[in-house]
């Protein structure tokens, strides 16, 4: 799977939430794992919850529009 960097958190050091674009015109998100039980989400098999700061998504969207 080939990912293209779209935008990140600016992580010169430290944690690194990031948005990537795939060849299929979908996004792949790198973020912090969220426990579905804590979030009270019934998660289907094969899916994951991740958390990223709001500005990471907002900045990424302005770059691909």
């Amino acid at each position, binding site marked *: 799977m080939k990912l293209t960097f779209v935008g990140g958190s*600016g992580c010169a050091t430290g944690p690194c939430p990031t948005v990537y674009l795939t060849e299929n015109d979908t996004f792949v998100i790198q973020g912090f794992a969220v426990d579905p039980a804590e979030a009270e989400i019934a998660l289907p098999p094969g899916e994951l919850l991740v958390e990223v700061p709001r500005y990471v998504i907002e900045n990424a969207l302005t770059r691909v529009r």
Partner: protein
Amino acid sequence: MIINMARFDRYFTHFRASATRIETLPAYDVPEERENFAVYLSGAPLPAKRHAEWSANVRKAVADGKYMGRIHVIHDRALGPYLQYEVYWYYDVAAAAGEDIRFIFREDVPDVDFRDTWIFDDETVVDLGYSAEGQLKFVNENDHPDRLEQARAAWEELYARSFSLAELHAKIRNSGIPVPRLAHDGKPRDDLRPKRPGQRVPNPRSGDHRYQGGDPAIRR
């Protein structure tokens, strides 16, 4: 989990045994600090009550038998203007209150994977996310066991090779470390150099050097 400032703040008064900090950036850009940084760069006398709130908390924690420590990673073996400001405005005061403040040269720990982090009670890792300019963007409590091990190992490795604030002062006195007089933007600050010995340098921002009180809310 990304946590808000209220929850982050709670850790500093509610930790039971230890709070340790790794600082990796040569400069942090904290809006609440800008005025104080300008006062420092102007060469004006440092306000006696600077960093009072934080230091009172340190003093209380240490009196209660707790440990507070920090290691600041120094880049290029030089003390840039912001780090000079940190030393004289914050570290000297906090160290007198009992915080164990230490330093290490980046070149001495090429093999260690470290980040800007707080560890509370040797069990809770809080990672701080910064922009390239040093602005705090978010605070993440990372409860993955592997991250805890990595953060503990980083603290232990850095600590083992670090040196104390007193040793840093000795290096400065003995010219063992360069202390370039540069502005935040990296340009030489001719305007901050006294034109002749003993001449007072005006504050570039204002003529009023009175300390406004309060500590920076977030970058500790």
